[in-house]
């Protein structure tokens, strides 16, 4: 394992993809890194500062690298219900839901947010690293007569997250902005350009995600920062996004989710409808798992004492027996101790269970705790 972070070999920057906000990030003094093939900011002022800004006021993240798909047509609901785990029939127009797309083995291809924009039109927001794989999978299953569009390249997006997020977006868009409620999406305009505003996020705070055309991205972002700064808005980057989402126990695909782990193992059963009639890929595997019980589960754990932060791939032990592996880990800026997520044997998954991590040859005691680590006050 190459642990030399500052020496991390970056691919030739010329080969990395950039969002429409790349120049804006450079001007803001961002530290830019290779993030799954994208040249993205990992921090501006510092991860701890940015983390705190989001917990106490608000931060804005460039999420333009994420993918945006549209599915439309009379049979769109039935098609999506046969593709995704959550029950699409529960979505009224203007509502969104977290859902998962699985392979035939029940493993996770991607986790995404599905919004119903109109009666027969759906909007999917998928992970940047999975855009191509997701599109191929959808097109492979797409019946004739349904429309599909991948607008990832022409769409930019920012997430404004934190207790002051809604106030800031209103200051930016004006009093006429139809404020979406939790998990809702509304259409609006900025400088006569159409935008979408969703009350969603990936930080454990209240927040709004704004989607807009890449051609207006620079002006949009600058105007948003200007409107938000007096209210405490700070530019935030992927480093803080990772510690924020981990405190909220929101899984990261590629770390906590993979094509070899089912959403039941990941503790995401709430977003899987096994009772809906539609048959989605992997459903049989999940039904079997539910009946027979899980062998391993994704648990949240914390360090018992001050010690080295947990990191992905550290092995988990109970006594001399290896019982699992860490998938995400970091020092928690809010809590002040190391936290993480790990897949462990089901017998070790109850909160209160004492386990140990192996870190550089030493054993470090941890305790399984209830999810999430951090929950915002309502």
């Amino acid at each position, binding site marked *: 394992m190459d642990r030399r*972070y*500052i020496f991390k070999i970056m691919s030739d920057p010329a080969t990395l993809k950039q969002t429409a906000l790349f120049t804006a990030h450079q001007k803001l003094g961002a530290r830019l890194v290779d993030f799954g093939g994208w040249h993205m900011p990992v921090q501006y002022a510092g991860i701890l500062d940015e983390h705190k800004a989001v917990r106490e006021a608000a931060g804005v993240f460039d999420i333009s690298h994420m993918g945006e798909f549209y599915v439309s047509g009379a049979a769109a609901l039935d098609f999506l219900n046969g593709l995704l785990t959550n029950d699409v029939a529960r979505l009224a127009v203007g509502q969104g839901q977290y859902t998962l797309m699985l392979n035939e083995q029940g493993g996770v291809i991607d986790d995404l947010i599905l919004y119903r924009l109109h009666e027969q039109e759906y909007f999917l927001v998928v992970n940047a690293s999975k855009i191509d794989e997701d599109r191929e999978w959808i097109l492979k299953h797409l019946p004739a007569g349904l429309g599909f569009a991948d607008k990832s390249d022409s769409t930019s997006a920012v997430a404004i997250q934190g207790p002051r997020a809604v106030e800031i977006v209103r200051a930016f868009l004006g009093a006429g902005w139809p404020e979406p409620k939790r998990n809702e999406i509304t259409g609006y305009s900025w400088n006569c350009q159409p935008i979408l505003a969703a009350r969603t996020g990936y930080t454990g705070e209240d927040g709004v995600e704004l989607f807009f055309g890449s051609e207006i991205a620079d002006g949009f972002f600058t105007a948003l920062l200007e409107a938000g700064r007096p209210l405490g808005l700070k530019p935030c980057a992927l480093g803080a996004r990772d510690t924020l989402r981990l405190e909220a126990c929101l899984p990261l695909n590629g770390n906590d989710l993979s094509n070899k782990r089912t959403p039941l193992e990941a503790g995401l059963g709430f977003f899987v409808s096994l009772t809906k009639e539609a048959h989605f890929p992997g459903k049989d595997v999940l039904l079997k798992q539910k009946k027979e019980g899980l062998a391993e589960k994704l648990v949240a754990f914390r360090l018992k004492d001050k010690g080295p*932060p947990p990191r992905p791939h550290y092995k988990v032990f109970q006594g001399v027996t290896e019982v699992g592996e860490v998938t995400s880990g970091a020092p928690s800026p809010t809590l002040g101790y190391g936290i993480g997520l790990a897949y462990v044997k089901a017998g070790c998954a109850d909160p209160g269970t004492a386990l140990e991590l192996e870190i550089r040859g030493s054993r470090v005691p941890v305790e399984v705790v209830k999810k999430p680590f951090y929950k915002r006050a309502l």
Partner: protein
Amino acid sequence: MSNIPEQLRYATSHEWIKIEDGIGTVGITDHAQSELSDVVYVDLPKVGAKVVAGTAVAVIESVKAASDIYSPVSGEIVEANPDLVKKPELVNQDPYAAAWLFRIKLSDAKELDALKDAAGYKAQIGE
């Protein structure tokens, strides 16, 4: 522009070393602490350990990642900085003084010739 004191020698892997009476004091550069940012934990070598130049002997953990620290010279570790256990943030605040990492008794002073001077290190990091 980062701080690069004239009187120190530098390894390409961003450690500095200061020699006094055959004992080297080692830390990481201002540039390195800035690149790492927000140091939260430091794992130091054991006193008495015999180490070889260029091998990983310590680990500095920032919020984002763990980074190996390499010994710029070969020898025996004679002291590790106890202050960093309780105050890892010293690495960000005072990389050339309070946040020295360890002291090492050099086994071959000629190894110092392979290290860079301030101008060489400055050129390396493009400043």
